[in-house]
């Protein structure tokens, strides 16, 4: 009755909950959802609420929506039909302006395991890959394996997505992309080729989970790309290692032993081994991660080095692993198993730290046994006495299991180190009388093995053991003793028959293994000492004949037929060969299966092969030639790589922390620099890995120096960033080259700058510039920058030329080296440069980054507009232009401000008046602007995809001025990072009717395609698509992620977009532009 009542109340409760969920009052709904989620988390069955919940998915209240998402995440697959109702809401949410909502909708939708929606998820993921927010892109990456799990047919599309995501430069995305790679196509290593260097250098900036995945992937990748560095370890080196380990080790396994021959062989073939620079890069860029607080990251780095690093460089991981053993028990457990596997192969790595593995009393058993197995492997001349002393203490422990392990270790140590054999035997003998039969048995087994090695020396032990047969009960121990007596019965001729006599008496009560050993002993004695034992043996055989165990019966019959049966045709010699043959020395059970499983896997810990376990590829014998990787633009030189990386890291921190526009720009420059694959890719800088590396490393600084107009290298304090002379030299090469390339087209662009660089005059005019320039020979030769015929030629920047000019200018080189030193000190101060300096730096950066960004399109002059005239603002002129550099604040458009103080007095504390509107991210206040000083900075405005003007106030200590900025339609667009034609055509074909517009253009025939292109790019921030057809195709993206596609085919203009308003505006602008 009471049960029925309970049921009733439960049903009542559920009804109440449904009423709440379906209520109109949001607070009640929220309460209901909270209760529901609470019930879910305790494992209650809540499927019956599904219809009520699925209705709520469209709720405008985000708090409710999130809870609904949580519910759907777990229950959708149980009710796929109803779940499909919610899909459209997800699709709508995916268009939301908030990146977190976009990501959330994608994440939850992709977690719904209903195969029929896999296509929809795929579509959303494809969109998300091009999202402006790295968080959404990462979510897209993580959705890929889910789609793959639902429907394997999409594999090709997914791989495409993965390769697109791998191109991403945000460290947050890389981790996700690699996770997807591992689950969808773990062996398609060719995808990684061109990104290898990038991943290496982004590693430090990734989040910890991304690091784990990346290291795992890079390890497997590298095993297919590089040759085994240990094949080439010269014998000298290993000798050195030996002396470093200061003792000889006895447990080194096969690899160690076969090594000398191997080495010799190899030495004759390939005397020298040079590590692939990429291999080196990987090793060096993972080392800093050993300082991570995440033990999984540390362990992964250790695994990577264990499988990839040369033997001589392993010390560093030994230290890191030992530190992990000081953490909490679970971490310690995994770290110790790793050490145990490693020390099996390289015992010397840890042998000097053997004390770290001494067992402490309070530790759990699994830690103790692991430590014991490690200690056993580490034994050597130097520590054997200390170890024996420790073991002597361990065997006294109360924990039987542990004592047994300690006995086994002691046996192993004694068998390999004759120095302590006697001591160990004594200790083991004492243990035979242990209260635990298991311990006693184990010690006898160990003694047996030890005795076999040298029985003559230890006859006293032998005799003592035979006496123990009266006391010992443990079957394994008894059988061990019997075996020993039988094996060496000729050495104890008086005792052996007596033992057999005793056993004959107790035979019936013995266990099977003991019985078998009795038969064994009997047959041996029968052969050696027939006279004394014949009768006894006959008796035992008879007993065995009627034994309950068929093994025993079988053995007895076998022996009887062979030995006792008079019909036996075998003579004594043959029988002796059968029964008394020499036995090989015992092997200690090295359970070697650990080394079969790759480190850092559950399989390695559990010693079982689990599903999902990945075998490590074997090193290739000859490293494959990999042009894609070699030609990728990331740096090769170790030093540079790490410097750049670190610089970036520092910068990222600072910039994010301070929101300083300067740094953002520099950051961009750097990114664009390093991403300048197109330059080297086109072959004009044929294959000079070092060139591109150094370019990206120091480009930002030297670039700024050469453009700054201050004309001297000392101005660019951070010249030394590249750390090497030739590196920096080539960096400026590249910078200049670009400049040259651009000059004809965009001369006006930088003329219209703040005037800090006044045309080409400043380049040739500044003697200091060309003087310090190492390759200046070729430059001065050509005379002027505009006549750049020699630069555009592809081979003209080859390394040899650089070298030549370096030699010529060795004097200058010296002076420059001095500068390098100086500027090295200056690196930290680079953010404290004077305003003047930084501003010019910015402008040049802006200039170059633009050019870089639009590598394959047209250089555009952005019209400069006046924001504040001097009459109104105490003599401060402010003009602006909309910058097309990608914004670091998604959704915000960067606006470059040019400020000049035309007043007689300095202007102080110039900033945007508070409160700063929501849609503006302010620049850092300008503390002081001297008369006639100009300054540039960046302001970020979120126009919210509208052409409405944005108003704000600029305030200085003395004045307050109203300003407004009106964007043109074209500037509301964001240029997508990458887009290919197929995708373009695909999308366009989907957009028709309301979403498309087709118009005839008049008077367009007079324009060349090139001119049209320039005009379009001038009015709108779009990206041109390389088309195979004759059409001109452009694509752009609005702030709310609507894509806008523009096609111009002879005189037809078509625009496709989901945003009809945009189509309208853009078409108007384009028509206007092309009219003139």
């Amino acid at each position: 009755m009471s049960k029925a009542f309970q049921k009733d109340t439960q049903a009542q409760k559920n009804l109440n909950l449904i009423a709440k969920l379906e209520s109109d009052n949001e607070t009640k709904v929220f309460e209901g959802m909270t209760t529901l989620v609470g019930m879910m988390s305790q494992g209650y069955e809540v499927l019956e609420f599904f219809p009520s919940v699925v209705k709520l998915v469209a709720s405008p209240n985000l708090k409710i929506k999130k809870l609904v998402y949580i519910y759907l995440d777990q229950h959708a697959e149980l009710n796929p039909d109803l779940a499909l109702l919610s899909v459209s809401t997800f699709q709508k949410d995916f268009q939301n302006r908030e990146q977190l909502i976009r990501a959330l909708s994608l994440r939850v939708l992709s977690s719904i395991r209903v195969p029929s929606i896999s296509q929809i998820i795929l579509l959303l993921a494809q969109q998300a890959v091009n999202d402006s927010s790295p968080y959404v892109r990462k979510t897209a990456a993580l959705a890929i394996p889910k789609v793959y799990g639902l429907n394997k047919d999409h594999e090709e599309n997914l791989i495409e997505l993965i390769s697109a995501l791998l191109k991403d430069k945000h460290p947050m995305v890389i981790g996700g992309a690699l996770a997807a790679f591992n689950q969808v196509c773990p062996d398609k290593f060719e995808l990684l080729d061109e990104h290898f260097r990038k991943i290496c250098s982004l590693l430090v900036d990734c989040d910890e989970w991304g690091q784990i995945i990346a290291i795992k992937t890079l390890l497997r990748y590298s095993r297919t790309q590089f040759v085994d560095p240990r094949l080439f370890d010269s014998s000298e080196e290993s000798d050195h290692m030996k002396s470093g380990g200061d003792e000889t080790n006895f447990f080194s396994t096969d690899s160690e032993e076969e090594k000398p021959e191997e080495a010799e062989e190899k030495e004759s073939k390939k005397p020298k081994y040079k590590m692939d620079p990429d291999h080196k890069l990987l090793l060096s860029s993972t080392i800093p991660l050993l300082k991570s607080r995440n033990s999984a990251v540390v362990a992964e780095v250790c695994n990577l080095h264990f499988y990839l690093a040369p033997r001589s460089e392993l010390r560093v991981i030994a230290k890191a692993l030992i530190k992990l053993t000081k953490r909490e028990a679970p971490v310690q457990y995994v770290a110790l198993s790793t050490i145990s596997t490693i020390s099996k192969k390289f015992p010397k790595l840890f042998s000097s730290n053997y004390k770290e593995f001494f067992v402490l009393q309070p530790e759990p058993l699994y830690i103790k046994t692991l430590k014991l197995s490690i200690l056993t492997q580490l034994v050597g001349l130097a520590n054997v006495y200390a170890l024996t002393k420790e073991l002597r203490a361990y065997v006294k422990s109360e924990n039987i299991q542990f004592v047994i392990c300690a006995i086994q270790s002691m046996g192993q140590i004694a068998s390999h180190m004759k120095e302590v054999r006697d001591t160990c035997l004594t200790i083991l003998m004492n243990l035979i009388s242990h209260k635990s039969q298991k311990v006693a048995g184990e010690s006898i087994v160990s003694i047996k093995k030890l005795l076999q090695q040298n029985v003559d020396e230890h006859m006293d032990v032998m005799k003592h053991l035979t006496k123990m047969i009266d006391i010992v009960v443990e079957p394994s121990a008894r059988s061990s003793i019997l075996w020993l007596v039988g094996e060496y019965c000729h050495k104890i001729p008086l005792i052996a028959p007596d033992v057999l006599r005793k056993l004959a008496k107790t035979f019936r009560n013995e266990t099977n293994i003991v019985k078998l050993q009795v038969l064994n002993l009997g047959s041996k004695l029968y052969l050696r000492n027939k006279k004394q034992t014949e009768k006894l043996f006959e008796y035992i055989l008879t007993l065995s004949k009627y034994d309950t165990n068929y093994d025993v019966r079988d053995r007895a019959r076998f022996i009887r037929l062979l030995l006792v049966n008079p019909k036996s045709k075998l003579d004594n010699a043959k029988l002796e060969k059968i029964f008394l043959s020499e036995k090989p020395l015992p092997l200690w059970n090295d359970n070697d299966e650990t080394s079969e499983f790759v480190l850092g896997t559950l399989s390695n810990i559990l010693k079982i092969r689990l599903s999902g376990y990945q075998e490590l590829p074997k090193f290739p014998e000859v490293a494959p030639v990999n042009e894609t990787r070699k030609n990728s633009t990331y740096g090769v030189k170790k030093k540079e790589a790490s410097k750049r990386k670190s610089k970036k890291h520092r910068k990222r921190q600072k910039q994010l922390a301070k929101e300083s526009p300067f740094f953002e720009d520099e950051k961009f420059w750097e990114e664009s620099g390093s991403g300048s694959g197109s330059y080297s890719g086109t072959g004009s800088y044929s294959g000079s890995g070092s060139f591109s590396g150094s370019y990206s490393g120091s480009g930002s600084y030297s670039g700024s120096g050469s453009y700054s107009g201050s004309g001297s290298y000392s101005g660019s304090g951070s010249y030394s960033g590249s750390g090497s002379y030739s590196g920096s030299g080539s960096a400026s090469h590249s910078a200049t080259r670009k400049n040259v390339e651009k000059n004809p087209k965009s001369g006006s662009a930088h003329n219209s700058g703040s005037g800090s660089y006044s045309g080409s005059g400043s380049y040739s005019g500044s003697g200091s510039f060309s003087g310090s320039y190492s390759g200046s020979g070729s430059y001065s030769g050509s005379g002027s920058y505009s006549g750049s015929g020699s630069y555009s030629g592809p081979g003209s920047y080859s390394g040899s030329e650089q070298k030549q000019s370096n030699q010529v200018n060795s004097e200058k080189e010296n002076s420059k080296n001095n500068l390098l030193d100086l500027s090295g000190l200056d690196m930290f101060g680079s953010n404290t440069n004077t305003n003047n300096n930084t501003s010019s730096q910015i402008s040049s950066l802006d200039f170059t980054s633009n050019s870089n960004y639009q590598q394959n399109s047209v250089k555009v002059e952005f019209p400069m507009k006046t924001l504040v005239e001097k009459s109104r603002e105490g003599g401060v002129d402010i003009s602006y232009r909309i910058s097309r550099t990608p914004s670091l604040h998604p959704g915000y458009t960067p606006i470059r401000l040019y400020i000049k103080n035309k007043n007689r007095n300095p202007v102080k504390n110039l900033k945007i008046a508070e409160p700063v509107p929501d849609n503006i991210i302010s620049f850092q206040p300008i503390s002081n602007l001297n008369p006639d000083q100009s300054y540039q900075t960046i302001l970020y405005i979120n126009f919210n995809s509208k052409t409405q003007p944005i108003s704000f106030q600029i305030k200085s200590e003395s004045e307050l001025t109203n300003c407004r900025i009106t964007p043109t339609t074209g500037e509301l667009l964001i240029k997508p990072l990458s887009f290919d034609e197929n995708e373009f055509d695909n999308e366009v074909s989907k957009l028709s009717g309301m979403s498309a517009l087709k118009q005839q253009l008049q008077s367009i025939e007079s324009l060349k395609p090139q001119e049209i292109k320039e005009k379009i790019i001038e009015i709108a921030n779009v990206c041109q698509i390389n088309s195979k057809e004759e059409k001109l195709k452009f694509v752009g993206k609005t702030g709310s992620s609507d894509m806008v596609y523009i096609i111009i085919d002879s005189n037809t203009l078509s625009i496709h977009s989901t945003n009809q308003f945009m189509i309208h505006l853009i078409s108007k602008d384009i028509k206007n532009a092309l009219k003139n």
Partner: protein
Amino acid sequence: MIKSLFILNTGGDVVLEKHWQGRTGRNIISQFWNEFTKENRTKDLPPIVRIRRQTIVHMRKYNLLYLIVADQDTSPLMFIEFLNRVIEVFSNFFSTEPTETSVKENLPKAFELLGEMMDNVFPVTTETSMLKDMIGATMKSTPNTIENSKKFVTLSSDQVGGLPWRRKNINHSPNEIFFDIIESINATIERSGKCLNSEIISKINCESKLSGMPTLTMVFNNSSILEDVSFHQCINLDTWERRKILDFVPPDGAFELLSYRSNRMQTQIPLYTSGRFSWSKKKRKGKFEVILQLRNSLVKSIDNVSVLIPLSRGCSSPAVKTSNGAAFFNDQTFELKWEIKKMPKNKEVTLKGSIKLPNKGEIPREKPVAIITFSIEGLCMSGLKVTNLNISNLKKKIFKGVKFISKSGNFTLKF
């Protein structure tokens, strides 16, 4: 890969369960619980076990047992560190240790957090500050905020992609930051008082209440002590490599800045320890003596020193005499505990006594050990000192403080 997470209380009941990939039945949990509670295994069951063709990783913290069920192979440490993060995030969100009560009180929040922390078997967002931005505001359940939550005010776009460990627009008054340098000494002492081996395992805990985005630099007198070090992700590794200076933008609230390990000791072990223990077969008795003394030159005083001697089962009430403090015998756990409230200067304190063995059974072969715990404020055993702490990017007045604590880690006396 991680399939499910279960949190059990001390009785083996499920407090919370979260599934990322399908639902894992509870019978695997009961089977694990049987395994776990088998005699002697509670401590000795390895942290990674195989049950019903599934892998279970378990971990105990604050009287809760966390179980991860996995069916695919991956890094075992990833599971363990993920659990560590879960516990860290829970304690930050519940503003108390995650115990059975506090988890039960915050079930929906905990559940939502777990959803955010992992996306399809892959850990994603595990930083408290980012999580606070993502859900912090949505879970306040007062009715007023419900109605007004149409706009996602706190979902600031800058956060994602910024510093993952620090939110923008943090405001504190007063502004203060405190560092606790906590050094634990692990040592094994012989009965003669000789130190067999010792090492210092230390960490720097930080409690930061600073506004905005401050950048801190910390300079040490002897940075070589920090050779074997692990850093919080906020620390700029490069500056450290080159200049041995810590340069970081701290997370908000309490966090562990770094941890280090050192074998070198600048000072002597602050507590001198020696003792004796012997079994007498005839009397079936064990006699023991423990001597402690302060090493005077270093420390003024140590409060609350305790010595714990775990004895073998069946031992009965010891006769104990102490020169200072009091000693108790717990006949459930068979542990003798000696507590000294205040260690005197220049004077040895002693514990003498004997215990009785049960009438039957063997004399134990093993001698017990004494586990000593102490904690000293103001002493730094490794000799590490902060010579300079600079805060830039914050114009307000800042209170800063550095405190040293030396304490015992695994400090045992072997008789």
